[in-house]
């Protein structure tokens, strides 16, 4: 099969995550997976991300745990201190709250507090996202909390290639990396990743070049931004669409270079707008490009409320293509 033929094969994100874990485990016997229901006896994860791994690599390396987030994170931290590379699944991002002490006070800080004597090369996989009427405790995006914690890295892929490449880079990384898996994207398709593919943490990507406005987003809101292109084109607005991919560290250079060209920036995310990732990016762009901006930097995020259950309300909660287009057109056309 030619390389081009391999390249055109389409896979879903859920498969890409699975492939990344399998390839990492095959390449390095120090990679171990733990979390609630991750082994095949428990059906390989609620969405099947880890399906098949325990059958292939054994339950010693792919270990289901009780529902015990603090103990999961503690076990992952301890093992990582002495050379293991644990990939710990915290089933839902809201459940990271239960393990916050382990993540924030320990995983993130041990390298610094020990003067570099120890470090914590672990990966936290966690899924989230509105779209399933899961209500207020199963859908939140908390990436800003972790991005605000020195010592943590945070990535949020939106394509199968990035899901694979960022997972591999996260496992290679010497520090704790949280992979936020946006649940509605699990079953979207894209080009299959090449085995061994890596996406550097901290690198964004310009998906669509444009001249009038830069739209920075990630995960589902990135797909919504792409979905806004048609309306933007019809309005005569040329938008440059950036998929941020990494939240901490974020690719300042890529965003600044784009905004230098377009003079306008709209940041879109599913997390609530106040104190979110958009605020950090907006502040940085204001500091560095103040005189070159043609319009104030704007943000679109969820309103400042919990994720609602009722479908029409949930749909209103997440910025969509129509609202992105409307906002961007207003910014360009004044």
């Amino acid at each position, binding site marked *: 099969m030619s390389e081009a033929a391999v390249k055109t094969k389409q896979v879903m994100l859920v498969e890409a995550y699975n492939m990344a874990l399998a390839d990492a485990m095959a390449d390095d016997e120090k990679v171990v997976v733990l979390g609630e229901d991750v082994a095949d006896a428990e059906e390989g994860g609620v969405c099947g991300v880890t399906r098949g791994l325990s059958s292939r690599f054994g339950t*010693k390396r792919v*270990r289901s745990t009780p529902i015990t987030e603090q103990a999961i994170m503690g076990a992952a931290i301890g093992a990582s201190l002495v050379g293991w590379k644990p990939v710990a699944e915290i089933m839902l991002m809201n459940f990271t709250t239960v393990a916050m002490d382990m993540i924030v*006070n320990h995983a993130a800080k041990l*390298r*610094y507090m020990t*003067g570099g004597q120890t470090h914590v090369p672990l990966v936290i996989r966690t899924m989230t996202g509105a779209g399933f009427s899961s209500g207020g405790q199963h859908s939140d995006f908390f990436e800003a909390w972790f991005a605000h914690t020195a010592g943590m890295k945070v990535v949020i892929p939106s394509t199968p290639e990035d899901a694979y490449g960022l997972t591999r880079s996260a496992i*290679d990384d*010497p520090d704790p990396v949280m992979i936020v898996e946006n649940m509605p994207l699990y079953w979207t398709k894209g080009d299959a990743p090449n085995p061994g593919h890596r996406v550097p*943490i901290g690198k964004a990507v310009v998906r669509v070049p444009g001249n009038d406005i830069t739209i920075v987003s990630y995960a589902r809101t990135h797909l919504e931004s792409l979905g806004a292109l048609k309306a933007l084109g019809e309005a005569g607005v040329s938008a440059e669409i950036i998929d941020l991919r990494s939240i901490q560290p974020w690719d300042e250079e890529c965003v600044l270079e784009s905004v230098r060209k377009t003079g306008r920036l709209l940041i879109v995310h599913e997390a609530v707008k106040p104190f979110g990732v958009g605020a950090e990016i907006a502040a940085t762009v204001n500091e560095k490009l103040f005189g070159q901006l043609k319009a104030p930097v704007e943000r679109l995020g969820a309103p400042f409320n919990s994720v609602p259950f009722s479908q029409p309300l949930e749909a209103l909660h997440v910025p969509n293509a129509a609202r992105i287009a409307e906002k961007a057109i207003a910014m360009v056309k004044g």
Partner: protein
Amino acid sequence: MNSNSPDGPTQLEIFRKMALLKANDERSRKVISSGRLVMPYYSYRGQEVIPSALAVNLRDDDYLCTIYRGIHDMLAKGLPLKSLWAEIAGRVDGTCKGKGGPMHLTDVSKGVMVTTGIVGSSMPIANGLAWAAQLEGTDQVAVATFGDGASNIGAFHEALNLAAVWKLPTIFLCQNNRYAEHTRFDVGTSAAQVADRAKGYGIPGVRVDGNDPVAMYTVAREAVERARAGEGPTLIEAMTFRFHGHVFGDAGGYIPKEEYAEAVANDPYPRFRAQLIANGIASEEELAGIEAGYEAEIDAAVEFALNSPFPGAEELTSDVYGVVA
């Protein structure tokens, strides 16, 4: 005598550690009182027997996760005095280049893997180190030490349960000094004994007089042997008392005077010292020599620490992330 009881040389070894620990605590309080060092200091005076009797059963490659009141645990495990003092003085020659301080002392070469300032958090991480030993098929053990107050926090229960279901070589060592910060044990703890809580997790739970070196040694040895043999975790509740309150400066107004006086009268240090002499294990001169030796070592460590430079400004922002290969 139980086959797990300490012989004479082992008892002397326990005493050596106790002498080091006691002298170091006394010096720490003296140096802080003099104003030469500033830190939150959690005196362990009165609790020396527990880590001393445990540590003679451990190797350098066994793991320890301890807490803010844990300098006795670390010294017993072998953390060197000079790097200890340099760290608590915030100097570059400290175990953590002065960036961790007394609550985060670490020495991987001695198995002092994590020191936490968060009540209860030593336990989940000790499980991870024990899991690593299990994955590697070694006979290393991991010890989590913590206070009686920590047995009321969720991390304790999650950690005991996981250690039990995974049969991890973790030793949960509760140093019950009768007060959780200022709250008396029975006021804050529903169980009559912390050790009773082991039943709920299907693991052995033992309450022992943590001020009795022979009893403490025996219980610790059994737990260590059990863990090394792959038979799983043990919860030890070692009864003790802290003589100087929760944190340096705490006058202990919440402790009844009679209770305090009785505990001090039963100070385990002079008691064990006299016992060694009475049993012919060591002479007064020998023990005095050990004590004088530590005083001199501590003199040198304090001097070393105070002459060590402070970390440079570049250290403020280093060690946040490592280098990506």
